[in-house]
């Protein structure tokens, strides 16, 4: 009988959040702190000739830092450490994107800071910039996945083989966490240690970046996560930039410096979802079996590598969808342009490719005159099948269960999809389906290399402190870890204490990304707790008494556990073959839309989703993840526009960067399907990213049902829909 698993707890971070007591980085009051700002390029590409400083301004009142001041003699590298060392902390000569950081300023107050920033003029000799990824010549990463003989299928002409093609484009998307980026850095203390507190997902990423930039040991860089007002991937890599800048300023002025972005700056310069172009060619048998898939993926990486190679990897690994296919070829590349670097955003490459395969399935359904639900069901991967990389699906394959559940809840299987109906009035309604999966945890041998660790400490009063680098960013890490620890230890939730993610105290559990916090880190936590419980021993007395006695008798109250891969996983990174992920989450979405026939405005009325998460450890949290992620996907489908002009984001204020409101959001109907994963904690898999994958194709499928056009470009704005309608009726 489980007491906490599957039963909702009040989230430990909740009371402070609803009462206004929760402390975010902008809420910190640091005596003597100065405020920081960033001097940026105003062109997308060029050569920085000099930074002209107005001699009328009294520069002795502020700290001014350029690459020349910050590196060299001071030690440290002008490198934003992440995957590839191509991004400088501050540009030296070459400018590669609009808004690139060129210099930093710190001042005692905001008015002085604004005056100083206004008194600097970068002189940049512009150079031709590349904004078209199709023409870009610098390739950050190429990926090739091959299974079977794709050309063999396409080569043989046959009346029984039906070939469909499509090119599917996805524009960028802004994470739009409601709390902008920000960090506060302190100058080195007597011990040489530098502290940074900030709004961030991955404290140990920031630590690594700080150590490299400042030329100090990682142990001397202390990173503390403050309450974080949303991340969605947007606070995976970028906080390292903010932290390095704040730390350089703190070193220069010898005081704490707070570097808090205003919304405009955040929207203008922080990484967003990679724009994608996915070309698919697919061969089907007359009865709908998928025979071959040939997929070409192109992502715009922007000016620097950032996380692009791994985003491309996840995109390619999800490009053939949750479908059985003997012959698959996926070729992917992510290229350099002079756009602001793109980066992590929930889904991490998969939403772009999932959109393409799902739209192509709809096209095939229409042409083959097979119901889209039936076509998915015919081709759905099931236990015993292998994926495009040859991964044998053994555990927790909830594909059929989610399809059956979505049919029951939404009735999509009985809906006459794309059958012309009499329309009355000026609005048309439609229903659309998507079916998708998402790998939980790092790709390939990533978890094996990360070796995420968790520590549990028995405190003197018998409570147990959980020390992990995983962060609470709204998704519910704190409630989840409390429930897992209490269940595994057999104690009350009041016996669990969660340590603040502070790199000086907590071990590196790996980043809070990739739908891994529950399944991977939660699994390590459960093991650590079971080890401690075994040491203390069960008995009739309450836990705290037993624990105190155990400590009094000299027992070791600390257990540190490192991730161990489930048995039998193997991944070949050079050939992209094998077990791409430990396990997949499975889901199906149905959207109901109403399209205004005069304006082509789309309203998503209802949204059903059926999701296999293995086991919902905290059902309300899972529900929140699914609804929130689905709404982000719905927003991307038709409403959230992100465009660039001359390398600059055009939607750089909240007045123009639109996300759904309460009035835009559909009513959600969530069905949790639980097919337990034996190697996850209490059967759980990941859920964070999964709901981002399916919403957009479901909405576009519903639009196709409503007005008959096959939209192939996200977001499907009224302008784009109108153009498709006009093309159909010249």
């Amino acid at each position, binding site marked *: 009988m489980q007491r906490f698993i599957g039963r909702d707890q009040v989230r430990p971070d909740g*009371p*402070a*959040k609803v*009462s*206004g007591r929760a402390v975010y980085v902008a809420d910190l009051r640091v005596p003597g702190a100065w405020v920081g700002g960033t001097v940026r390029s105003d062109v997308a590409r060029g050569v920085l000739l000099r930074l002209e400083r107005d001699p009328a301004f009294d520069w002795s009142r502020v700290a001014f830092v350029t690459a020349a001041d910050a590196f060299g003699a001071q030690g440290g590298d002008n490198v934003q450490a992440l995957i590839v060392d191509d991004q400088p902390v501050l540009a030296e000569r070459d400018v590669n994107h609009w808004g690139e950081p060129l210099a930093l300023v710190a001042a005692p107050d905001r008015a002085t800071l604004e005056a100083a920033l206004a008194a600097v003029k970068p002189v940049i000799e512009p150079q031709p910039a590349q904004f078209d990824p199709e023409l870009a010549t610098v390739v950050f990463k190429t990926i090739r996945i091959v299974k079977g003989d794709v050309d063999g299928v396409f080569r043989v002409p046959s009346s029984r083989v039906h070939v469909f093609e499509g090119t599917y484009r996805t524009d960028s998307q802004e994470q739009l*966490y409601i709390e902008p980026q920000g960090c506060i850095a302190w100058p080195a203390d007597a011990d040489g240690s530098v502290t940074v507190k900030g709004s961030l997902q991955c404290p140990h990423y920031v630590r690594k970046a700080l150590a490299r930039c400042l030329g100090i040991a990682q142990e001397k860089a202390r990173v503390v996560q403050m309450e974080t007002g949303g991340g969605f991937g947007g606070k995976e890599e970028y906080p390292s930039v903010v932290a390095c800048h704040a730390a350089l300023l703190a070193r220069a002025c010898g005081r704490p410096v707070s570097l808090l972005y205003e919304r405009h700056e955040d929207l203008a310069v922080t990484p967003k979802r990679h724009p994608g172009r996915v070309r698919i060619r697919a061969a089907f048998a007359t009865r709908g079996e998928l025979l071959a898939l040939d997929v070409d993926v192109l992502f715009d990486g922007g000016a620097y590598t950032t996380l692009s190679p791994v985003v491309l990897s996840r995109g390619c690994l999800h490009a053939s969808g949750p479908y059985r296919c003997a012959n698959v070829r996926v070729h992917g590349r992510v290229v350099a342009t002079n756009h602001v670097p793109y980066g992590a955003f929930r889904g991490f490459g998969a939403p772009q490719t999932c959109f393409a395969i799902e739209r192509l399935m709809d096209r095939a359904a229409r042409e083959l005159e097979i119901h889209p639900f039936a076509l998915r069901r015919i081709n759905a991967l099931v236990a015993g099948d292998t994926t495009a990389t040859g991964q044998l699906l053994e555990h927790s394959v909830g594909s059929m269960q989610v399809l059956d559940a979505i049919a029951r809840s939404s009735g999509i299987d009985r809906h006459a999809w794309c059958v012309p109906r009499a329309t009355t009035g000026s609005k048309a309604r439609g229903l659309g389906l998507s079916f998708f999966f998402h790998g939980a945890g790092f790709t390939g041998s990533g978890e094996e290399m990360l070796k995420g660790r968790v520590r549990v400490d028995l405190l003197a009063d018998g409570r147990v402190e959980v020390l992990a680098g995983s962060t609470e960013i709204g998704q519910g890490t704190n409630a989840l870890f409390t429930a897992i620890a209490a269940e595994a230890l057999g104690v009350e939730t009041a016996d669990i204490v969660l340590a603040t993610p502070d790199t000086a105290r907590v071990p590196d559990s790996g980043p809070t990304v990739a739908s891994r916090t529950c399944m991977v880190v939660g699994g390590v936590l459960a093991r650590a707790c079971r080890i401690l419980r075994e040491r203390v021993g069960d008995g009739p007395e309450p836990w705290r008494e037993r624990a105190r006695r155990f400590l009094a008798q000299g027992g070791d109250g600390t257990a540190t556990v490192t991730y161990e891969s489930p048995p039998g996983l193997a991944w070949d990174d050079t050939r992209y073959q094998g077990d791409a992920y430990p396990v997949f989450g499975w889901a199906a979405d149905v959207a109901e839309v109403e399209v205004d026939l005069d304006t082509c405005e789309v309203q998503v009325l209802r949204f059903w989703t059926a999701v296999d998460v293995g086991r919902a450890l905290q059902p309300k949290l899972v529900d929140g993840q699914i*609804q*929130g992620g689905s709404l982000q996907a719905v927003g991307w489908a038709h409403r959230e526009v992100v465009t660039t002009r001359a390398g600059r984001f055009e939607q750089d204020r909240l007045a123009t960067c639109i996300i759904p409101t309460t009035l835009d959001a559909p009513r*959600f109907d969530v069905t949790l399907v639980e097919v337990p994963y034996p190697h996850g904690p209490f059967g759980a898999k990941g859920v964070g990213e999964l709901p981002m994958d399916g919403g957009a194709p479901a909405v576009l499928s519903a639009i196709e049902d409503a007005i008959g056009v096959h939209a192939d470009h996200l977001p499907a704005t009224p302008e784009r829909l109108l153009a498709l309608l006009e093309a159909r009726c010249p």
Partner: protein
Amino acid sequence: MKPVFEEAAPVELTLRVNGATRTLRAPPLRRLLDVLREDLALTGTKEGCGEGECGACTVLVDGEAVLSCLVPVCQVSGTEVSTVESTGLASIQQSFLAEGGAQCGICTPGMIVMTKAWIDACRRDGVAPDEDGARLALAGNLCRCTGYGAIVAAALASARGGGAP
């Protein structure tokens, strides 16, 4: 770009904040948001955009919901200002906890204050609180975590919970 407004000489202002009388000196065009957060250390009120689009900075001025990033402090002299820290919001706060209406928490103070304004308006106008009404009332408050379902549920639960929220 706040500082440009703050060059006028400070004036003395008196207002009531969460039931307590506060007298302070501030430039007349200083944003109410900054007065609350910086001068009065009431950091529960959040800044999400600084231009009146996100609703995170919503507070009540004489019972009416306003965006404190758009209100110069001179306009609230002599008024009663209520923020998320106000003790009168306990039952709404409980509803947000119970329904899962707070995830990352940054929009939550504004949502809670706006819910209070909506419930009061329903009572004043004799309107039965319903989901459409809650959605309309909260339409100016952006949330990126929840998909709004749990927030709307929390607002409805607060409205129907009886008693003074």
